[in-house]
């Protein structure tokens, strides 16, 4: 809820919202991205605030988003790209090249890292990616800073004609704070694309020349960053903390409790602001590096100390003082700093070492989720057959949970389809299934299908089409018929795409019709080559529930429903099976499984 204070509006927003408002305030002209926790709310926030004149899109994947944005930046427009850390692996190809070519308008690549990891496959460190691509990186520590810093990122990008990376982490993206957003902002006025093949067409000669230029320029940026407003020093003394990101906030809190410690904060890890660090290290004999993911700053400090023959001890991850894996916390950094500064651990803790065993609450597919029915149909149809089930990234990764237990592999976006092919070539006695969601199919599944057809794989592709990008918060995609400009567009048909790519057998079935679904799987298993089943039923979160099911008097308490499908709405009460009407969506899968027909819709009994 905006609150008017003077000429500025104070908004209490999520870190991702602060990034979005900061980009609008900076006059962004185009924003493109692909959903991924913890980055998804940036594009969504822009769509909810006035953004006339801004082109906004969920691109089909991160690579597409990066290329769309690069063109906008070539035209002199300000372009924002958003993704999570693994998305940058997908977009690495255009990023590495656009780093050589450079830009005219500001191009900011927001790539959210996920220490923990909390909802990711890897703990990769995007600051290292910035170093690899030789482009600047900004590392905010709070939502308030993120709001300010995104504007700086656009300024530096234009000043040095280079794309820049903006790297928040989960605890910045998903924290809330108040920011003072300007009342009005207008997209930047820009010139438009000016043709110049010597500049915009990447060739070996251009790359060679620009490589040398970029390294010279990065030395200039490093010097510039040495006076950057968010590279800061506070406190004094021979012992110092060097930190960045949310760890800076933990160090700040520790300082409040201990009457002030020396804290050196590096908000621009690359190009490393060496002059700033040299100044900050004057009079220091020992430093401890507090950072998440990889010891990037630690390595730069070691290089600086070595190059200048400084007699300074450097502690951090590399000497085993801190763990390499997992996220930092006030607790972890507090313990590390207590040892470093020689303070006695202080605490106001309640002893919970004698706590009773707590119920585990693992994530599961929602009650009524159509993915449960799809997995169950495949499992039933393939009883007694040797199979491999290659999973993918999305809600349906949860098909691994008992009792379904239907995910044998999960690697990365789109790998379900292609890994099934690999198994079909090596394990010829096995029926190879590749599962993919609808959004994942468009993002990175389609090329895998062409690969299967061309290289004569023998697979069954299961597209679990729930008409949305469910896992990241129900974003639209090419199959939904809506886009982020608010337009109704033609739905891209998954079946037509498959047909066009040469898949000969394509069956579309509603997974909640169990018999038909099982028959479709059996039919495909008897057919050689590349087969596809589109299991189509919408996510329960985007449609209204049907008539709820209930268990009638015919129930013989065999519990087949509970044992085989594990729907959270199926509960036991006083020893008998019941359906929790708060959770049931009326999908009817359990009714089709009951051997005595005891489960029915409302009014059946």
């Amino acid at each position: 809820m905006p609150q008017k204070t003077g000429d500025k509006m104070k908004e209490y927003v999520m870190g991702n919202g602060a990034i979005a408002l900061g980009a609008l305030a900076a006059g962004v002209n185009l924003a493109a991205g692909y959903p991924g926790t913890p980055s998804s709310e940036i594009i969504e926030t822009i769509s909810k605030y006035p953004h006339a004149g801004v082109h906004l899109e969920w691109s089909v994947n991160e690579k597409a988003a990066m290329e769309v944005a690069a063109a906008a930046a070539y035209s002199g427009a300000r372009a924002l790209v958003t993704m999570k850390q693994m998305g940058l692996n997908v977009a690495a190809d255009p990023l590495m090249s656009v780093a050589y070519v450079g830009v005219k308008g500001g191009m900011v690549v927001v790539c959210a890292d996920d220490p923990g990891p909390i909802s990711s496959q890897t703990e990769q460190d995007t600051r290292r990616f910035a170093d690899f691509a030789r482009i600047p990186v900004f590392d905010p520590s709070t939502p308030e800073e993120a709001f300010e810093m995104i504007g700086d990122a656009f300024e530096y990008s234009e000043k040095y004609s280079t794309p820049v990376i903006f790297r928040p982490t989960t605890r910045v993206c998903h924290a809330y704070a108040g920011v003072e957003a300007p009342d009005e902002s207008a997209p930047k006025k820009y010139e438009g694309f000016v043709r110049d093949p010597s500049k915009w067409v990447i060739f070996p000669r251009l790359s060679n020349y620009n490589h040398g230029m970029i390294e010279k320029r990065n030395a200039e940026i490093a010097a510039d960053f040495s006076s950057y407003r968010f590279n800061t020093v506070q406190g004094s003394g021979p012992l110092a903390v060097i930190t960045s990101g949310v760890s800076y906030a933990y160090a700040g809190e520790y300082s409040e409790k201990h009457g002030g410690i020396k804290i050196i904060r590096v908000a621009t890890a690359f190009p490393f602001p060496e002059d700033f660090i040299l100044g900050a290290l004057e009079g220091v004999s020992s430093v401890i590096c507090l950072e998440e993911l990889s010891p990037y700053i630690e390595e730069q400090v070691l290089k600086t100390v070595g190059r200048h023959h400084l007699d300074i001890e450097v502690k951090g991850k590399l000497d085993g003082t801190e763990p390499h894996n997992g996220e930092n916390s006030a607790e972890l950094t507090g313990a590390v700093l207590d040892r470093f500064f020689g303070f006695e651990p202080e605490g106001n803790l309640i002893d919970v070492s004698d706590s009773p065993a707590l119920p585990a609450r693992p994530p599961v597919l929602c009650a009524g989720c159509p993915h449960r029915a799809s997995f169950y149909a495949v499992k039933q149809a393939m009883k007694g057959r040797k199979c491999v089930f290659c999973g993918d990234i999305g809600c349906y990764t949860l098909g691994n949970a008992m009792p379904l237990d239907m995910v044998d592999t999960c690697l990365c976006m789109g790998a379900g389809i292609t890994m099934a092919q690999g198994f079909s070539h090596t394990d010829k006695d096995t029926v190879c299934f590749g599962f993919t969601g609808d959004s994942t199919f468009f993002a990175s599944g389609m090329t895998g299908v062409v690969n299967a057809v061309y290289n004569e794989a023998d697979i069954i592709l299961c597209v679990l089409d729930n008409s949305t990008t469910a896992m990241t918060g129900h974003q639209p995609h090419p199959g939904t018929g809506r886009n982020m400009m608010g337009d109704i567009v033609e739905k891209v048909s998954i079946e037509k795409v498959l047909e066009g790519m040469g898949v000969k057998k394509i069956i579309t079935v509603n997974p909640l019709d169990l018999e038909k679904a099982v028959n479709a799987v059996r039919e495909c298993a008897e057919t050689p080559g590349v087969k596809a089943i589109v299991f189509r039923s919408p996510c329960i979160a985007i449609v209204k529930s049907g008539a709820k099911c209930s268990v009638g008097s015919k129930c013989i308490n065999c519990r087949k429903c509970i044992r085989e499908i594990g729907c959270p709405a199926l509960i036991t009460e006083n020893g008998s099976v019941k359906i929790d009407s708060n959770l049931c969506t009326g999908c009817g899968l359990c009714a089709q499984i009951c051997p005595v027909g005891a489960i029915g819709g409302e009014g059946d009994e």
Partner: protein
Amino acid sequence: MNKDIMICGVGGQGTVLASKIIAAAATQEGQTVHSAETIGMAQRGGSVTSHVRIGDKAHSPLIPPGSADIILAFEPSEAVRNLRYLKAGGLAVVNTAPVKPVTESLKETGYDGKEMTAYLRRKCRCIFIDSDEVCAPFGSAKFFNIIILGVACATGETGIGKDVILNQIDLRVPEKFRETNRLAFLAGYEIGEKEKKQYED
């Protein structure tokens, strides 16, 4: 004023609205506020927490262990799970109605929450409320988040005034539910006042 307020429960119980109202009310009072919530995979049937930090001394969005002034627990085992965040001498406002884990029917553990409430009673200052009982006059368990806010507000441990919270309820709740939510908050407030009197005596 510096206050750390933790809200915990199970996905779908309405913890997020409660934390948003507290954060907005504190902002309205001119305080610096930071907060954080569980988002994503952990939400689906899982344990959820919201951290609300009021005051200038909080730099990070997460409450450190041993720092929370008050825990609003929507479920007894979730109160125990997050008890380490409560400072010694802090207050836990706990719903005694258990939420069985979604895997309970597959693998019965007999969880009923009683062991949790007994443990909490031994460990800290508690106010126990039964959501089934307090929500009954309002016809839906959905009002529990507003009721527990009322209880917490009356204890004074949140440091936020009654009127500011009522104002935020007015701002955030659709008009047709507004009056019921106000009444639910005031019902909770009354419970909180009584409980406060009891433990102060």
